[in-house]
């Protein structure tokens, strides 16, 4: 990745002590503003074409009008291009050892700075047009849940990848070769799974969108029969547009989905037209849910979503970005769970998680709603429940729309017990865990009040213990309590392992070990200590 670029100016995008300022690629304004340019071209071009097809001489006939049109077009174009150029010229960024800084704005200047070790996720996004130019946008997320902290659009793809590697290396606390600080090796990665295209199409076909389509079609047919007016079927049209958009957005974001693991965390790549590569460093996943729409049960498919601070729910493509696995078999789910939760904290993780995915009753150590709840939740009472392992709390719910939510103990923010009048009469209560903004809402519904109170106390204690033993923000550093400081120092000074091929097979072995053989304690610290 970074070979012989030793010179001071050669590695243009490397973090350096001098703090060189860079600009994004000059073509970027065009790639960002192509829609406006295309609109202008369409507007004036159509005018011109119509004149042409009427058989007039376009430049001779009504020369004054054409002249004015051309002048207006040129003026608008000039303004746009000028604006783009100015904004490009005034947008500069800098990556130092600890921070990434961006200044932007022509009239209203903005200077933004984000700490590298606070990174929650890094995305490399390539919209279709950017792919043509081999450009990419780099998004740097911190825990804010609003807009991306830093967006660099657009960089040459190779530069974006190198910058990502450098940022992750600094954020991880890897000590780089002081003679060549710009040589941050890309962390070796090991592919975990990919989703076949056929399965994506099948999953779209069997999704809730199809159920909705069938319902609407049935309603339209009934309406047509009742009114005896075939025109009533026209109500289907808007629904069809919505359904088509639903299929398309699922297919285009789940297409070519691949997941990989590296010492820098989970790597996800996907996309049909716009491709995206996400990196979520270790310990940044706040909560994960595995759900199964009713029709997917036929094929045994599941969907996984995550809460990552910084992804939020409202931002662009938030639904796709928070998807850890758009559609996967149970084996895929187990593998991804092993990535998110390297240490499942139980002797028999397969049995426990399988019970969480589609078990009922107390199998796998789950504590469910008391039988008296069968009047209120005739189907779900056997499913509603929780199980705690040494490292995470598993929350199970839903009989038709099955869901399993896993929250690592060290990621619990706060929690609350709720009980309404009816629940009090029935002697049950709900427990809600609070996590960062995201699609996953961890909660245990309708469990026995005494059990809920016990879980509340135990969970508070478990979360406190997990916080004390928590891993450092710089994930390749040894944790502070692991040994005397000199040991931690030595661990920092071993970047070779990161660059060498040694980590990948071992990381893979650990991952599969977590999947089938059981937990390996302290696996998360392996990379750093060597």
């Amino acid at each position: 990745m970074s070979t012989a670029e030793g010179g001071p100016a050669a590695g243009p995008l490397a973090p350096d002590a001098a703090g060189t300022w860079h600009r994004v690629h000059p073509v970027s304004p065009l790639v960002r503003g192509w829609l406006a340019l295309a609109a202008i071209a369409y507007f004036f071009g159509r005018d011109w074409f119509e004149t042409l097809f009427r058989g007039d001489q376009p430049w001779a006939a009504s020369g004054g009008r054409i002249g004015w049109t051309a002048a207006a077009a040129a003026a608008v174009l000039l303004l746009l291009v000028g604006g783009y150029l100015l904004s490009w010229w005034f947008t500069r960024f800098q990556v130092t050892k600890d921070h990434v800084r961006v200044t932007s704005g022509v009239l209203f200047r903005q200077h933004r700075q984000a700490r590298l070790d606070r990174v929650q996720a890094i995305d490399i996004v390539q919209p279709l047009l950017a792919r043509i130019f081999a450009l990419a946008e780099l998004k740097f997320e911190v825990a804010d849940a609003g807009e991306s902290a830093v967006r660099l659009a657009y960089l040459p793809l190779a530069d974006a990848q190198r910058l990502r590697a450098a940022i992750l290396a600094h954020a991880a606390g890897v000590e780089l070769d002081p003679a060549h600080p710009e040589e941050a090796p890309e962390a070796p990665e090991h592919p975990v799974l990919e989703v076949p295209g056929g399965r994506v199409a099948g999953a779209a076909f069997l999704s809730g969108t199809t159920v909705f389509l069938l319902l609407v079609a049935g309603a339209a047919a009934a309406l047509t029969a009742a009114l005896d007016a075939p025109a009533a079927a026209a109500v289907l049209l808007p629904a069809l547009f919505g359904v088509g958009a639903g299929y398309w957005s699922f297919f285009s974001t789940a297409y070519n989905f691949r997941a990989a693991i590296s010492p820098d965390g989970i790597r996800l790549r996907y996309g049909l037209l716009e491709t995206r590569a996400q990196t979520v460093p270790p310990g940044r996943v706040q909560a994960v849910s595995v759900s199964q729409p009713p029709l997917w049960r036929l094929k045994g498919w599941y969907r996984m979503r995550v809460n990552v601070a910084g992804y939020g729910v409202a931002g662009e493509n938030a639904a796709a970005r928070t998807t850890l696995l758009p559609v996967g078999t149970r084996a895929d789910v187990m593998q991804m769970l092993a990535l998110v939760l390297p240490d499942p904290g139980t002797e028999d993780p397969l049995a426990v998680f399988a019970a969480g995915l589609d078990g009922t009753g107390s199998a796998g150590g789950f504590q469910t709603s008391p039988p008296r709840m069968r009047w209120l939740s005739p189907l779900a009472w056997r499913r509603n429940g929780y199980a705690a392992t040494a490292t995470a709390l598993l929350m199970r719910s839903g009989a038709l729309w099955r869901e399993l939510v896993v929250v690592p103990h060290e990621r619990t923010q706060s929690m609350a017990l709720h009980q309404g009048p009816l629940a009090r009469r029935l002697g049950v209560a709900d427990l809600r865990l609070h996590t960062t903004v995201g699609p996953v809402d961890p909660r245990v519904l309708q469990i026995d009040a005494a059990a809920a109170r016990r879980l509340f106390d135990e969970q508070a204690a478990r979360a406190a213990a997990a916080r004390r033993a928590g891993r450092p923000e710089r994930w390749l550093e040894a944790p502070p309590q692991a040994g005397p400081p000199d040991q931690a120092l030595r661990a920092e000074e071993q970047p070779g392992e990161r660059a060498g091929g040694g980590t990948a097979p071992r990381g893979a072995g650990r991952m599969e070990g977590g999947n089938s053989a059981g937990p390996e304690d302290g696996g998360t610290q392996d990379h750093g200590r060597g």
Partner: protein
Amino acid sequence: MPSEPIDPPGIGWTRVSPRYITVRLLGWAAGTLLALAVSSLPLFLLAGMLPGFPPVPAWLLPAAVLAVALWRGLLIPRQVRAIGYAERDEDLLIRSGIFFQRVMVVPYGRMQYVDVSVGPVERAFGLASVKLHTASPATNAAIPGLPAAEAARLREQLSARGQARLAGL
């Protein structure tokens, strides 16, 4: 009502100031007057247009509003007395509600910042509200109606404990 609360046993709850009942009642009175005025609009309009007595439904609306408001007003003292908090070694417990009870635990290490806010009415009664924020917007941990000195003490205490037990995200 079966009155077994969902609180964990053996917690010594600190209750908020009884003066907060007055603050809540003042707010309640203002809200009730406004709601009554709005819901009486049809009554006045109809009374102006039609001579004689306005129809019964026009009376029913403000009457219903008043009934609901009275019920809520009666609950306020109990609701305020139900608010409580307890400082434990690792976390802060906050409880509230009588019908819809809630017990929340906020670990000190998870606090991002602490807000102390004082409204004009609260200031007149020497009260303040403390609100804890974590990285989760679902953490709605507010303790209203604290005496100003207690609010300041709690803020300092929470900040100090948060510093000592600081955890990442």
